[in-house]
């Protein structure tokens, strides 16, 4: 009985984190983006500096009519948002935020593989949406999503493999237990490649060609309204949380910090994740959208060679220190 309670409690906590953190990131994006553009951002909802803007948005989305285009493939069209969103919830289960056993939803032996595999599934949602909408723009969006995923999955996997090599394990808590501060400079190239590839996989600006709102009208999500559209948006922000959390765990040492590693480890994890999330927003505000050919070129001629070089470096250092 205790076990059941324990599992239930963990799931509830993970679900709560899953519902809250993306909204926090979203609100931060509203405000940070506004100030970076010399604006104030939302100021009214909730009274104090528009803190409840996203809650208000959610209520608005829930009130909207749920429309399925006449020619669309009904079932798949309706299923797609769930396929896009659920994988991130699953990934969140495996990310450890503190050193103790109770600071992770579920320890998974092949953690890296689990996380990357499930994140890859999330993209299927966009593909399904793109195809099932019966809309040219959606189809173009779907095609671009697929092309982007194929190009950026590889550097992501390679750099994750580099960390796994360094730690000698593929379990996420295992990697963090093996972490030393000098991994930071050692794996810095891998970290950058991982983060950039992750951004591209999430289709965040400047890698948002698949949803380019000014040319293909939000790509795969053109036909979506109301709650289903909100789910897609939520998936994007959950993706940011997951990517930042993963980068923190794999490359930035998670709960390790200059002081207070015992007991306050989770603060370090959250702090690093928050800083990375700020970076995601910052990049979005600063850079224009990459063209499709530039996207592919960046992945195949820059990121993958860098990732391979990182693996070689990891291997050499690993052999040298043994």
């Amino acid at each position, binding site marked *: 009985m205790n076990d059941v309670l324990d599992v239930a409690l963990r799931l509830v906590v993970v679900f709560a984190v899953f519902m809250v953190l993306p909204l926090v990131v979203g609100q931060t994006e509203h405000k940070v983006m506004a100030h970076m553009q010399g604006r104030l951002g939302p100021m009214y909802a909730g009274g104090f500096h528009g803190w409840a803007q996203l809650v208000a948005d959610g209520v608005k989305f829930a009130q909207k009519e749920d429309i399925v285009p006449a020619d669309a493939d009904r079932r798949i069209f309706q299923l797609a948002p769930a396929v896009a969103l659920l994988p991130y919830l699953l990934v969140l289960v495996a990310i450890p935020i503190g050193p103790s056993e109770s600071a992770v939803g579920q320890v998974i032996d092949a953690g890296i*593989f689990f996380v990357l595999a499930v994140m890859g599934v999330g993209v*299927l949602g966009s*593909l399904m949406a793109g195809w*099932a909408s019966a809309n040219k723009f959606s189809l173009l969006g779907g095609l671009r999503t697929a092309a982007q995923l*194929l190009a950026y999955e590889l550097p992501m996997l390679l750099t994750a493999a580099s960390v796994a090599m360094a730690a000698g394990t593929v379990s996420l808590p295992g990697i963090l237990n093996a972490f030393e501060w000098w991994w930071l400079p050692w794996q810095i190239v891998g970290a950058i490649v991982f983060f950039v590839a992750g951004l591209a996989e999430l289709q965040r600006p400047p890698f948002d060609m698949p949803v380019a709102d000014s040319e293909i009208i939000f790509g795969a999500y053109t036909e979506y309204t109301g709650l289903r559209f909100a789910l897609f948006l939520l998936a994007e922000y959950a993706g940011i949380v997951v990517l930042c959390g993963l980068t923190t765990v794999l490359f930035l040492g998670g709960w390790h910090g200059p002081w207070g590693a015992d007991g306050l480890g989770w603060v370090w994890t959250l702090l690093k994740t928050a800083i990375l999330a700020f970076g995601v927003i910052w990049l979005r505000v600063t850079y224009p959208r990459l063209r499709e050919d530039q996207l592919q070129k960046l992945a195949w001629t820059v990121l993958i060679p860098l990732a391979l070089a990182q693996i070689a470096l990891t291997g050499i250092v690993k052999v040298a220190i043994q």
Partner: protein
Amino acid sequence: MSHLAAAAEQGFLSPTGVEIAFLLVGIATLGAAVVTVTTKQLVHAALWLVVALGGLAVEYLLLTAEFIAWVQVLIYVGSVVVLLLFGLMLTKAPIGRSPDADSGNRWAALTVAVAAAAALVWVVVDAFRTQWIDLDGPAQGSTRVTGEFLFQHWVLPFEALSVLLLAALVGAIVLSRKSDNDKEQR
């Protein structure tokens, strides 16, 4: 002998929860696979393939082969199916039925499929029979055990496969490259 004894202790096909789950997931996977090859809606076939491959991953999990399960999801669901869908979208797959999504070779295909299935089932049954997985110590199929097996007992096949994949890669590049003759003609 010990395996047989273990089997006798546990009883062959004693319906534990895991076994029931294994069977149910197996049936679902089989059903998804059958729908994959019989449906006339191309993209639906690809999506049912996702279900079938995901079902297989769950089966691996139930057999404690955690590593294989996640790799299955990563490679097949995450990449192969995406590639398939990409191809289908490029070929203007219609929404609804494609009348030509049928093959005249269906009987030959069925024969091959049944033969392959029979061979696999026979080989697996013959190889393991009533063997039980020893759950004490590191689980069979965990990452460490799989890695040790792969790089101690099966290095040669592994490397041979790597060379095969490399050859395929080089071949693909050669095929997709424009030859100099083509350029001159233009």
